[in-house]
């Protein structure tokens, strides 16, 4: 078997490349500068996802004109009459190929003219839970990072609403080698349920960036159960997730977020501020109504 299979797969692998060469959308996808310049110029890697059909389909889906899901997604999450503009200037930075689909780090970097945006939404088209986060800022934000679940190959879309109500969309196509980031357990499937850790422990860090700019990072210990995973006994583990996060500092509120179980277990959020925050505080709430704080005296928030 370790002989024969090699040969069969060599053939399918060759077919895959032939297919790739013919796949017009793939070259469009590269040329549209969805990949940053650095990323595009880094050595290309041999693809290890030799399913040409799904690849072709997925690349088509990145093109919103060809996506069957996008129009509905846009209507649902951005509004019935949303005006959208696809922009390569919004850089959705994440790996092209993902091995561990339960926790995929990403960061969205916004161009200068969008730092004063009004609303930010991250959507994963092919996820059972498509919306990851909605963030309303109270001051300028330059980038937003997080760790997400990916159920399967999918376009990831960062939607940013400007002051005139126009949505600007950045996209990134990501391939998943072992699907199931939302629907399979993130720890042992037969012998144990995930180690819950200290639920609600909230870790807040404030980093310096260049010229007085700052980055804040929140990590919350939480299972972020999707409601799509079965326990070893075969019962569905009900959904249970952080559903809101609020941030402020001595100058007042920074941002308020609605969050969903498409964020990974122990979610991490990064926010880049033009000016480093002072005495930042965070508060989070989960779907059971429990509240978590990054500080002692919670009555003041």
């Amino acid at each position: 078997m370790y002989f024969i299979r090699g040969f069969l797969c060599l053939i399918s692998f060759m077919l895959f490349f032939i297919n790739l060469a013919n796949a017009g959308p793939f070259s469009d996808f590269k040329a549209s500068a969805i990949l940053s310049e650095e990323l595009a110029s880094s050595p290309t890697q041999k693809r290890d996802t030799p399913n040409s059909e799904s690849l072709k389909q997925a690349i088509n889906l990145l093109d919103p004109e060809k996506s069957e899901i996008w129009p509905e997604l846009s209507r649902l999450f951005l509004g019935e009459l949303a005006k959208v503009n696809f922009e390569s200037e919004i850089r959705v930075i994440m790996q092209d190929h993902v091995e561990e689909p339960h926790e995929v780090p990403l960061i969205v970097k916004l161009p200068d003219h969008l730092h004063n945006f009004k609303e930010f939404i991250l959507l994963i088209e092919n996820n059972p839970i498509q919306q990851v986060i909605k963030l309303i800022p109270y001051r300028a934000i330059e980038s937003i990072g997080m760790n997400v679940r990916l159920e399967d190959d999918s376009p990831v879309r960062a939607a940013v609403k400007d002051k005139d109500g126009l949505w600007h969309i950045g996209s990134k196509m990501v391939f998943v080698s072992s699907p199931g980031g939302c629907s399979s357990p993130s720890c042992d499937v037969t012998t144990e349920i995930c180690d819950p850790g200290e639920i609600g422990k909230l870790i807040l860090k404030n980093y310096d960036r260049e010229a007085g700019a700052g980055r804040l990072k929140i990590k919350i210990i939480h299972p972020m159960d999707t409601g799509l995973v079965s326990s070893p006994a075969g019962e569905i583990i009900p959904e249970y997730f952080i559903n809101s996060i609020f941030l402020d500092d001595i100058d007042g509120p920074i941002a308020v977020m609605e969050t969903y179980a498409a964020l990974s277990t122990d979610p991490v959020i990064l926010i880049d501020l033009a000016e480093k925050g002072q005495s930042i505080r965070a508060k989070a709430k989960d779907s059971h109504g429990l509240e978590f704080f990054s500080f002692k005296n919670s009555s003041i928030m």
Partner: protein
Amino acid sequence: MVFVEVSPGIFINFGKNEAPNKANGWAISNTGFIIGDESVLVIDAGPSYQYASEMIEYIKKVTNSQINYLVITHHHPDHSFGISKFLEIDTKVIISNSELKNYLKYGNKLLLQMKKKVGDDWFENTSINEFNNNKQKFPFSIDLGSRKIDINLYTDGHSGGDLTVTDKNSHIVFGGDLVFNERAPTIPHANILNWLRYLDEISNFNWSGLVPGHGPIIKKKNKLDFTKKWIQHIHYIARDAVKKGLSPAEVLELGVPEFLSSTKLAKETWNRDVPVLMKHYENDN
């Protein structure tokens, strides 16, 4: 499966020097066996029941000695998932306590992911089985019949407890995944500083040949330099990124440092391991 007799009575099947895929069925690491007058000792069980079965068939063709011992160098699936077959034929399995624990803890999750990635049929009959390693203390020696074997333990290096196998007759050492050759080393369960120390120790032994977990047999000590360079740098970059509060996505966007990038599987390994290391260091903070 092609076993090469690298020295009288020592056979190695060199794994495919590539990422796991549908064509190689995860058979990407080196396995081997050593024949004594009475016993055969197998080094690593391969990725599946099927692989182990083919290996056992092969051994039976070349010797009448009994397959009495199986050394699992560490718990990673490419080295350990053939265990279920060896248990059937009552081979004694030698593994460190920590790696037995890890095999049982992560085995089923990994098996599920592997089936999704390269196909179920490679793993027919493959299962994660409880077994007893009799709390074996290391180092210790085994006599295979006119052939002495030393087994050494390296705690918290590349994994929680890597075993190496030394054949005293030929001075060939099986280094497991403490040693890589012409391929990027994988570090998901590694303690880098210990690992570097162990590499120096291993490099100082008087071996005639060093069999890496992945890649061709090593004859010259300087072949270990690349592994050292790789793990030093990935360690440094991950630790520095955590200090600065970077997202793993930002670190990966910069790509593999150029002087490391030419080796096999550099990008895949880098992309998988940088986030894992960063998470370790984050938790340490």
